[in-house]
């Protein structure tokens, strides 16, 4: 049985300044101004940026595409606004606080770490990269997530998820650890799923998942995958008071699509 923990996802002391980390105070900045500054910093060579006093500013990380594929590491202190890391292309963003709706919207590559919870529509149409959420998330996570050959997005959620997880999923890996110990009581999990895989720590009923979804216990190959990502999760969130062994000792359920063509029989030709 997991130990329940309640953490204050507030602001913690930022990373120790560090080698050449530029700093932005977002207290009086609107979304567009903040993103203007971020882009300027990137183009002038900054590789690490810390943004403090973030409260609801949106699209952080979106304006940072260049054909040369410059990469930055961004620390966000506060509550990130909607569409954090939308269309993200290669950067690493860590939020010391909660995030809102639309995290990782159509994200292409890079990494997002949230030491708190996320809202709805997490990882919508995600096509690459990794997202780690320490606590739970809202509705419609991993909607229409995609993959192609080696390009495979991964989403790990430490708490629970609500309804419509993995709707229309076409690829990728979703892991829900539910460490707060609530049994998954989400419904409509995986409706329309036709690719990818969802791992849930614990058990779900058949009535909770879409018609096209197969429920089976995780096997050895699955546990290997889980070990990799659970380790990475714990590395990123040292405040989580559980060990890898404790987490992996619980039964894990695997959800996969029954068919690549769940709607193949729907139409009369």
């Amino acid at each position: 049985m997991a130990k329940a923990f309640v953490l204050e996802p507030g602001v913690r002391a930022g990373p120790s300044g560090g080698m050449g980390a530029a700093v932005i105070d977002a207290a009086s900045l609107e979304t567009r101004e903040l993103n203007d500054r971020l882009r300027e910093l990137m183009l002038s060579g900054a590789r690490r940026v810390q943004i403090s006093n973030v409260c609801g500013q949106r699209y952080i990380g979106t304006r940072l595409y260049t054909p040369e594929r410059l990469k930055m590491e961004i620390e966000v202190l506060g509550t990130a606004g909607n569409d954090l890391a939308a269309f993200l292309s290669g950067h690493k963003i860590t939020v010391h606080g909660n995030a809102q709706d639309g995290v990782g919207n159509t994200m292409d590559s890079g990494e997002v770490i949230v030491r708190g919870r996320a809202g709805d529509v997490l990882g919508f149409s995600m096509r690459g990269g990794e997202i780690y959420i320490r606590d739970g998330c809202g509705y419609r996570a991993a909607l229409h997530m995609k993959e192609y050959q080696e390009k495979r997005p991964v989403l790990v959620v430490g708490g629970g998820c609500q309804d419509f997880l993995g709707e229309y999923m076409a690829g990728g890996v979703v892991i829900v650890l539910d460490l707060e110990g609530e049994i998954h009581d989400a419904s409509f999990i995986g409706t329309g799923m036709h690719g990818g895989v969802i791992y849930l720590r614990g058990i779900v009923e058949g009535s909770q998942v879409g018609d096209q979804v197969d429920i089976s216990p995780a096997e050895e190959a699955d546990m290997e995958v889980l070990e990799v990502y659970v380790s990475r999760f714990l590395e990123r969130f040292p405040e989580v008071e559980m060990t890898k062994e404790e987490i992996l000792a619980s039964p894990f359920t695997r959800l996969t699509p029954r068919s690549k063509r769940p709607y193949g029989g729907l139409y009369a030709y």
Partner: protein
Amino acid sequence: MHRKRRSRRELYNKEICACSIFGAMNREGDRFTGEGVMKAIASMRVRGNGLGGGFAAYGIYPDHRDLYAFHLMFTGSTDQARRAAKKELEAHLSRKFNVYFDEEIPTDDSVFVRDPPLLWRYFVLPRKEGEDAATADEDYIVGEIMAVNTRIENAYVFSSGKNMGCFKGVGYPEEIGEYFMLDRLYRAHTWTVHGRFPTNTQAWWGGAHPFGLLDTTVVHNGEVSSYGTNRWYLEMYGYACTLQTDTEVIAYAADLLMRRQRLPIDVVAKILAPPIWNAIDRMDEKEKKLLTTLRMAYGPLLMNGPFAVIIGETGRMIGLTDRIRLRPLTAATKGEMFYISSEEASIRLISPKLDRVWTPKGGEPVIGEMKSMNRMKRVC
């Protein structure tokens, strides 16, 4: 360009509305100014477009707590038209109510708002004569409000509860707050706020949220796609949908179910946002029967379409979303404070530390209640 005969066709004029909502309640009943909620709604400015904003505040008239506070707006393109409407309204009001006193609603005219109507408030009690003597006070009042809104041109009652009031208009909500000086003149234990993004530029003051009847108010984010159905059903029960916004039906449905039919909020939520049949069929017999009966009897009140609403009542604040959760809503608590908002960041702005933050489930109401409800009981 539309000929007269076309009005015979069922053309419901309905604006589409999308927005931001916010609610804050002190469950001990301690009152606070509107400053905080104005800051919170201002932080969600991008969700609106400056064409509507409004507030509902509970506990603001403690000196007149037993009188009904009617807030009236007199629209019309000229000052003359507005004054004429006021005159007509007052004649009617004095016949049907005992007016204890009245005054212009104080405003800060240095704040720019578009075309403000004449705004007045009246503190009244019903004067029921003849046949009306047997009618319950509240039914009487609702009937009179519908009459005023439909029959007296350019006069609209936009708030009608005891010891509470709505303040709304065309502008960004924080501007409306400044216009009505909500951060200076009033202290309330519960505030609900709305910022609007309507798509009809002839946005008018009556169309802003909140919508209220007696002390029930509604602020709404989303679109009621079942509006036509909800509307005809409510019209059968004597409600007139005159304010051209789909939110009106939610306010009237709340009045019908909660006040007139005295249904508990959990049941009302199941009427407005019932579970899907698949889920109902799997429930135990008792629950299944209840929900099936509710859907059968109250089908026309099912609110379809994406929505997130905050319903305010004296002593209670209720957040509710549609059953498949298509609009965002975040709830939070900090000590005795209870918050509901479209975005978490706006709560954090005024309360950086929170005890608990969560996303309520679709179709399930999240309810904040005043700890001493006895003090808040309505007189029937």
